[in-house]
């Protein structure tokens, strides 16, 4: 590890933090400056002016926007996300259990989808322009056109309703046995996997093909090295960064896909929580959850860039 690499990584992390800060402003502004009155939406159209004014004062809505922003941000940095308007509960404590559920689902999906996508991507490269490769390209084209709920309901219709193999509604509760929990997330995880798999396969294929067509792989072939040796010694070290990039991009994609999937399978995660509260116009919850999703997204992109920096021999061994 040298100073140049450390400096670049520090820069990238600083950029990530700056982005997150700007995004928090954007999310806050998006919910505050746009027309629409929180007090009105809580009390409904029939509320008296006096009641509205009282509620506004109570919620600090009369303070200038800048003050409210810093109060909000300061709270979040200390783990205090405020209270939900709709039920007056502490947001942070409601979030925690749901975030765990979402992470559980995302973790098992990633554990299946990532290795599968990389292996299938390698298969496509190995059989380039032959039928396995064509099949993979063909399914990608279809897969990016399928809405999440189409895949989700088809799987639910056949595997839960018709065949009865899995539950159709993914209920989970505290203290649920692990095996039951896995059964419950089987269908949502399968749906998510199908959705990101094709993308990840195609991008892995492109990344590896790019390396396999480089002149140094030709050199290795002309040295008489065997196929595996070429892939392991010459293609792999140069494919790490692009493939990690592909994986991170798709995990970021997965974070968003989770929202719709949780609604389909009525899975008690963050996405479901967000959607419920958007419908209730519960702004503090939407802000908090929106910021968490954005933070994960920005974080994954940051990890991808840091891996690219670490994997670059030009940076690791400067002139």
């Amino acid at each position, binding site marked *: 590890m040298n100073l140049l690499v450390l400096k670049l990584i520090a820069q990238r992390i600083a950029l990530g933090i700056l982005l997150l800060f700007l995004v928090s402003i954007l999310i806050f502004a998006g919910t505050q400056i746009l027309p629409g009155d929180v007090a009105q939406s809580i009390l409904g159209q029939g509320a008296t002016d006096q009641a509205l004014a009282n509620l506004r004062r109570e919620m600090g809505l009369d303070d200038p926007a800048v003050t409210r922003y810093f109060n909000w941000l300061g709270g979040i940095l200390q783990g205090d996300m405020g209270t939900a308007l709709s039920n007056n509960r502490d947001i942070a404590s409601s979030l925690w259990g749901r975030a765990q559920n979402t992470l559980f689902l995302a973790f098992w999906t990633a554990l299946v989808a990532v290795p599968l996508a990389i292996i299938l991507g390698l298969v496509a490269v190995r059989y380039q322009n032959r039928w396995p490769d064509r099949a993979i390209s063909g399914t990608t084209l279809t897969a990016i056109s399928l809405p999440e709920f189409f895949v989700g309901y088809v799987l639910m219709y056949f595997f839960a309703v018709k065949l009865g193999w899995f539950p159709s509604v993914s209920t989970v509760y505290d203290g649920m046995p692990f095996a039951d929990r896995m059964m419950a997330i089987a269908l949502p995880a399968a749906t998510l996997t199908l959705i990101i798999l094709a993308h990840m396969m195609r991008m892995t294929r492109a990344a590896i093909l790019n390396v396999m067509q480089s002149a140094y792989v030709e050199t290795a*072939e*002309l*040295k*008489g*090295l065997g196929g595996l040796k070429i892939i392991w*010694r010459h293609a792999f*070290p140069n494919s790490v960064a692009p493939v990690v990039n592909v994986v991170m991009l798709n995990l970021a994609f997965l974070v968003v896909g989770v929202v719709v999937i949780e609604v389909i399978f009525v899975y008690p995660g963050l996405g479901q929580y967000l959607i419920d509260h958007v419908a209730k116009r519960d702004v503090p919850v939407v802000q908090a959850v929106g910021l968490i999703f954005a933070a994960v997204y920005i974080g994954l992109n940051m990890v991808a860039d840091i891996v690219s920096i670490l994997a670059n021999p*030009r940076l690791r061994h400067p*002139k």
Partner: protein
Amino acid sequence: MADPLLEIRNLKIEVTIRPPGEKPHDITIVKGIDLDLARGKVLGLIGESGAGKSTIGLSPAGYGRGGVRITGGEVKVNGRDILQLSKGALRNVRGREVCYVAQSAAAAFNPAHRLMDQVIESTLFHGLASRSEAVARAVKLFRKLGLPDPENFGQRYPHQVSGGQLQRAMTAMALCPEPDLIIFDEPTTALDVTTQIEVLAAIKDAIQDTGVGALYITHDLAVVAQVSDEIMVLRNGELVEYGETRQIIEDPQEEYTKALVSVRSINHQAKAPEEAPILSVRNITAAYNKSADPVLKDISVELSPGQTLAVVGESGSGKSTLARVITGLLPPKVGQIDFAGRTLPRALKQRTKDDLRELQMIYQMADVAMNPRHTVGTIIGRPLEFYFGLKGKAKRERVNELLDKIEMGEGFIDRYPAELSGGQKQRVCIARALAAKPKLIICDEVTSALDPLVADGILKLLLKLQEIENVAYLFITHDLATVKAIADSIAVMYQGELVRYGPREQVLSPPFDDYTDLLLASVPQMRVGWLEEALANRRMASQGN
């Protein structure tokens, strides 16, 4: 032949092409070639792009690039037909009996590994030596090839060494397993001339010392004449002429070979400078951004009407930057430019329409200098419309006149650039420049991307047009042979400075400064034995110092 290393009989090679909107089909790119190479001899394969020389060159390794297939004939290495071998047996030939040196060593080395690991890789893989023996071999080769600090050179990564050094390291990589045959595929083409001569000498020495046989592929006859025992001239996948190097160079039989040998022998009488220059560049200093080191340092040159000033230098000399300063694309930090009796504003935006019209430019890559979505008629017609307001029939007539001047027919007016050959594209660019009735045309490496014979045609056309139109050329090039062919005066640049400047005869006659001497001595000459003489002279000179 006593000890044949390589015998190729009736070699046929095909490739599948997929033109847009048509069914893919096969075309034959090598049409029945025979050749023999004895152990320790060097055969040069020469031809223009598309001659099939690289494809033939790679056949002893049983390798076809980009869907190229060997469809017929025999390729025997050490008596075994490569084409009949199993995949495993073929791998045993590659990197052990047959090794390869690519044109771009920068791309051919894996950026992720140290040079030493890559140089000894095939030796270890094929079990030809232990690691310590292989390292010792590699260090010896590094020393023989003149690489700096041979003991530690291998510890570096490819991006940490220069292009010329990488090319030598690649030669070391090919020699390390002590193969019988090395394929050199344009190993010096991407290098500057002063580097090229060193690499060429290193390769030649290494071949002689190790007694390896070699196929040397290049488009430059003067280069191949220095290293090979025999030369095979190819064109469109067919044999043109095949013989001893001395015979090919000194007594070519075929018309095509004769043309290749006499390339760049244009006889142009240099004109003396006139009193009033059309262009005078005064004390120009320029940099790409405010804080950076200047890429041009205090440059002053003059050019008379209807004459040619050649600006010559290697990469990084600042010669192309000079063109950008004159055109106003890069305003200089210091200095002024006088053109046709007036001082030009520094930046492009401040210049008048006439300033722009009278100063035209032609580029190295004609492909990208023309909008691919415009027809030849639009490309040549736009300056006519823009500067002279010509429209409709008048414009079309003038375009046809210009097409006539560049020796292309009227039929080209509705074609798109993609339908033209490389030489035709460059001619259209010349016509576009002429359409503005300029007093000066800046030619930036206009022949470098072209095959030698095509380049010759372009140079002859430029000289002819100069006679007729009385236009001055500022000719930027790295190629001294071109300079000798067309210049009236010459400016030699090195690392942003003007090292030598004056009328052609004066610049090209002694006494020389060190850099011009080195540059002139490095340009390969079309005769056998030039390399040895050049090296001997250089050694004498250094002893003299």
